[in-house]
């Protein structure tokens, strides 16, 4: 079991969760009713895919971010 503090980027609200091995980013977001959000460890790290297990990629007590989906780009650029 690991403890995580999920910071909702827009408000700064912190949601504390305990996760077990195999818990995915989607599980965490669903549990917190943040369906339109993505999880990441911060701006220097990529978003977790919804089906990706976060347990092995975070440390106990770590703070991670939930931000709304945003992407730089036009239809034409990468």
């Amino acid at each position, binding site marked *: 079991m690991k403890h995580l503090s999920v910071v909702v980027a*827009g408000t700064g609200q912190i949601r504390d969760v305990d996760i077990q091995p195999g818990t995915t980013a989607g599980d965490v977001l669903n549990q917190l009713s943040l369906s339109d959000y993505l999880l990441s460890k911060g701006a220097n790290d990529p978003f977790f895919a919804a089906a990706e297990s976060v347990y092995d990629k975070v440390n106990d007590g770590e703070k991670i971010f939930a931000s709304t989906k945003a992407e730089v780009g036009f239809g034409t650029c990468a």
Partner: protein
Amino acid sequence: MRVRIISTRPVPTTIRDLLSRVVRGRGPSVAVQRREIPYWQERGWNRAGNTFTGSYQTRYSAFCGQIVEHSANSIDFYLYQPSEEIRSCSHWACFQHRGNDWYLVHMGRRPKDVSSGILAIERLITEAYES
């Protein structure tokens, strides 16, 4: 064996503190309150009305920025003097020059809040330096 006391002197403060801590044990713990503030504020951005000023910060570089929040669904993100790394990345076409080296960053998928947009642009900058 007989002992004769010649003189006495006080124990140094550091040793006295150490001994008193051993005798008393640890003091009561103090709960430190967590700050629950939006990401933009945590990253040092300032807000004046609907305009935010600050910098997009990554491990590689930081860039001055300005954000204008017209409404919850309409937020413009500007970046000042993008570096050569940004200019040569695949997203450069998404930067529109608005004069005086300020660039509007076009969002293909619009964030619902300022903080999420800052995170997206900081992630783009990181990718530009790592690609």
